[in-house]
């Protein structure tokens, strides 16, 4: 054994080349990182902020002073009038100031009311505090400098008066509350939502996987029209959700839907069924829709994996006299287990996140309100943005939990 001379060792640490490469890499990633953090990270943080705020939909429009400007009066006694109003009926506005440019055609006649300063062609009035819903008229006597009333009015309207003022904004102040969380975790409603979410997610995921597996086995052989069928089976996934959801609604309409007509005619049921309006049935129907819409996805993945299974194994099994079911159970299924579990995790997360489908089909009524639909329901139907954000926070934590499992698993099951 001879000592290796130190010069033959690979260099330690980062050399200038490696540093340059890393710089280049971060430079190339920068646009992505910036845009993603702007649209994903920032909203995520703000969700946390909003979830502890008592904020409703109407608070999104902060209270502002509103002004309307007009020229009134008779020749010789013109008055420039500003009607000022607080847009909010609940909150006062402080430090209200009005600024306007006065055109050359308009001259201020007498001393204006207090707190107004007149500069060269400009007007600044300090109004102070506007009480909630307060209205205020500010009248300034003016005369027209050699111009008709119409031209003066036009000149006045050419410059919009500017208002400024500060009002307490619920979004930026430091008033916090836990009421939002108390509200969404409140008793029965939360349990219903949780049950709907779990039912939808678990059965939707498993159903789509099983259907996908079945479809993949059907198409895992070459025959004429195989490509055509494969394309057809992908339709539900490729078509816009809005189109297929409305097609389902019309197909299952309780009054004039074809499905009901068919069932009645075949004697399965006497009266028509309100598929998307009755309590246990609606949840089952949206789950069936989810399975219908996403089985193509599992089918595509599973088929791709099936076609890459080594065919020799099956020949060996044939030699050993294995029956078709045994080949499926002991050969195909173990080979597919990896992709099936990855698909399960992914689809589980995505089904959990699904919003559009249920929202379009039932609007979250009849016991189909899942957590994601609840975000919308709380924020927009009940107009309580804070509660909506609180639900979103709950969803986010569930997601963190799922992705923890996902990454634990994915690192073992590398290569999707």
């Amino acid at each position, binding site marked *: 054994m001879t000592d290796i001379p130190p010069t033959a060792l690979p260099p330690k640490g980062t050399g200038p080349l490696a540093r340059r490469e890393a710089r280049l890499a971060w430079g190339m990633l920068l646009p992505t990182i910036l845009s993603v953090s702007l649209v994903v990270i920032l909203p995520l943080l703000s969700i946390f902020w909003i979830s502890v705020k008592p904020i409703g939909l109407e608070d*999104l429009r902060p209270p502002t002073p509103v002004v309307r400007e007009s020229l009134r009066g008779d020749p010789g006694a013109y008055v420039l009038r500003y009607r000022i109003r607080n847009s909010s009926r609940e909150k006062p506005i402080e430090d209200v100031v009005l600024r306007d440019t006065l055109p050359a055609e308009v001259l201020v006649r007498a001393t204006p009311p207090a707190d107004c300063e007149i500069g060269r062609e400009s007007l600044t009035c300090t109004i102070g505090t506007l009480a909630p819903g307060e209205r205020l008229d500010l009248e300034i006597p003016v005369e027209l400098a050699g111009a008709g009333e119409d031209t003066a009015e036009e000149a006045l309207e050419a410059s919009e008066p500017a208002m400024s003022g500060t009002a307490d904004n619920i979004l930026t102040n430091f008033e916090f509350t836990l009421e939002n969380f108390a509200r969404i975790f409140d008793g029965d409603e939360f349990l219903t939502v949780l049950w709907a979410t779990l039912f939808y997610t678990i059965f939707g995921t498993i159903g789509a996987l099983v259907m996908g597996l079945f479809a993949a086995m059907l198409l895992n052989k070459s025959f004429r029209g195989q490509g055509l069928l494969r*394309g057809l089976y992908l339709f539900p996934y490729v078509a*816009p959700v809005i189109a297929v959801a409305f097609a389902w609604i019309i197909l299952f309409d309780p009054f004039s839907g074809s499905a009901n007509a068919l069932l009645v005619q075949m004697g399965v049921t006497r009266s028509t069924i309100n598929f998307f309006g009755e309590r246990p049935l609606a949840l089952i129907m949206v789950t069936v829709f989810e399975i219908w819409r996403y089985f193509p996805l599992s089918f595509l993945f599973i088929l791709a994996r099936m076609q890459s299974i080594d065919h020799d194994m099956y020949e060996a099994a044939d030699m050993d006299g294995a029956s078709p079911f045994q080949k499926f159970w002991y050969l195909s299924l173990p080979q597919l287990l990896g992709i099936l579990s990855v698909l399960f995790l992914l689809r589980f997360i995505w089904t959990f996140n699904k919003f559009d489908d249920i929202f379009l089909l039932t609007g979250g009524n009849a016991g189909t309100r899942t957590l994601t639909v609840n975000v919308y329901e709380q924020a927009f139907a009940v107009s309580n943005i804070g509660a909506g954000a609180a639900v979103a926070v709950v969803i986010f934590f569930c997601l963190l939990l799922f992705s923890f499992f996902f990454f634990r698993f994915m690192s073992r099951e590398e290569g999707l």
Partner: protein
Amino acid sequence: MSAPDTEVPKPVHAPTPGAAARHGGLAAPLQFGYVAGPVIGALWCFTMAVVTCVAVSFATGRPLAPAFLPCLAMGAWLGFVWLPDGGRAPGPRIAWSAGLALVPAAAFLLLRPAIFGTEETGFWTGVVAWVLFGAASALPLARILQSLPFGSATRHEFEEAVIRFLTGFGYIFFTAIVFIPFYVMVMTSLKNQQQLLQNPLDFTIDLSEGWGLFRSYAELFTDFNFGSYLWVSFYVSVLTVFITLLFSVPGAYAVARLRFKGVKAFSRSILLIYMVPMIVLALPIYIIFSMVGLRNSIVGIVMIYPVTTIPVALYMLQGYFRGLPAEVEEAGLMDGLNRLQVIWKITLPLALPALASVSLYVFMIAWNEFLLAFMLLDDPSKFTLTRGVASLNSSEVPRQHLMAGSVIATVPIMALFLGLERFMTKGLTAGSVKG
């Protein structure tokens, strides 16, 4: 044996062919051809009866219904008769078959025919339905049962028959469930209000109306501004594709090729971000846009859409870039190109198919996107197509219009999909961790 703490490979379950056939088990009585055949026949026959009735009803609007017991009786009899003889003397079989034919005949006479209609059905529709039903029951059944012996069957023969049955059933089942909603969508859009209310099952269209059939579409384009929606959707989607590629190509290249600290953390956070549900983001985006005044503007939409697709695109592209040979790029570097030139002149031309897949996939996401458009757009002059279709969902708009709108939204994406299926399928498999 080995000590308990050493790792023992898990025993592989050795398949024991024929074990079940010998020892019986649950399926034991089924493994006689004369039991399995009629059971499969009954199931098949009933499936076909339902399929025939649904198909005839949807195609002609005439009522038709299957009868459960007669179907089973007829199918069981067919399954018995159709079992192959295996070269034995046919004499007793014919006698048995003829005798057993009394069962379906009795069911037919005492209960009702396997499929039956009312007076509205009409004679010829009934005849056609029966011919279809007979052919669909008998012919495939012969194939399903072709290798099932009359007597005791081996496990192989039995499972073969079951698989043939399941295969036939599967093709019909999947084709039906996929086809029916789209069929209803297209046919409803071609009818008028009165026809729809009269008979919800009647999807026949009167071809003599000619172009009049498309009146819903014409109205959508003239009165409901759908031309503008189509155009907005189109350019928003195209812009989304371009911006997405612009951001994700360098990012994906950096993740796939360059070495830097944090590459793993980065790709993980990309995957993580791409699992954040849209509704969670849509709420703060709505608030921020309301305050900044970007709500109700196409600019706002074009700013948001690409960001929702960049993570997907980055994830898909980096997978593809990794698969490209690094040597070509290194040769380019040796010849004096810099990294950006390498990407532009070597990597991108090699990755064209992947770019096509990613573009198509992103286009599809942007075209189909509904939630953000629904929340952020209020002004009908700025609607995307999905938002426009959603606005048709009111009691004042007749539903053939709603369906025509759905068709308009579906057709372009379907045309793209069918025309470029190869790329699209690849894109779906690579990227559809999202959905």
